[in-house]
């Protein structure tokens, strides 16, 4: 009894391409949108804090802390995106596993 390896590979390739489109590109689109939102918020913060410092609503120590909070926000957003990318990749690998099993089992006469 011969196994048609080419058929298995072709079927798996199609499934994996579809899975990559779903799992990875959705994640990338969301990551770019989130990144833009954060940068807009920080731009607004910088202008606001500077104005508040100028009119004495906050002092230099608080100003420095608030700026540092925004720096941390940038770092943590990058960490979040890295983590979500890893989770998406893990999900992708798990999906590939499932596709290969399905393709192999369905090829057995």
């Amino acid at each position, binding site marked *: *009894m*011969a*196994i048609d390896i080419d058929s298995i590979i072709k079927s798996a390739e199609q499934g994996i391409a579809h899975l990559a489109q779903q799992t990875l590109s959705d994640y990338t689109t969301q990551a770019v949108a989130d990144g833009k*939102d*954060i940068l*807009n*918020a*920080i731009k*607004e*913060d910088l*202008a*606001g*804090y500077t104005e*508040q410092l100028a009119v004495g*609503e*906050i*002092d230099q*120590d*608080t100003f420095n*802390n*608030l700026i*540092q*909070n*925004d720096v*941390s*926000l940038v*770092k*943590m*957003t990058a*960490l*979040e995106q*890295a*983590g*979500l990318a*890893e*989770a998406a*990749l*893990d*999900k992708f*690998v*798990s999906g*590939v*596993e499932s596709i*290969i*099993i399905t393709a*192999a089992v369905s090829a*057995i006469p």
Partner: protein
Amino acid sequence: MSTTILRWLAVLCFALLGLAGCATISDYDQVSYQNATSLKVDTLALIDKSSGSYAAHEQDIAAVTLELDKAYEYDNGRPLNTITMDMWNELRARYDAFLADWKRKGSFNQTAIRDYKVGYSGDAGISALFDRIIKLESGKNKPD
């Protein structure tokens, strides 16, 4: 089933076991998620109290700090959780800086309180830092 098929399936099984063992980040954890969401609420409530004196709220501060320590240690004990721990370290540094500023000044006006909580934009501050941890946890893969 022929020997050839059995051999082929054996190779496939080893390959799949290899793939399955390649997780790079921890799965979603309900306790971790609840810790972060609960601490966000508690921390923002504590910042609201900074309109009053630091000395008058030392017990409140100690209570929130203890919960932060517990959440930190819980996540620290999870495997493949380095990114979340890097985030907790960053957030903890900002929380400590807020407390130091409060202690130095005695109390804050409403402008500083709002800025510490959500930033001038309303989308930043310590609230947004918690959101990063919460969003990562909720985006992790759910265990089977």
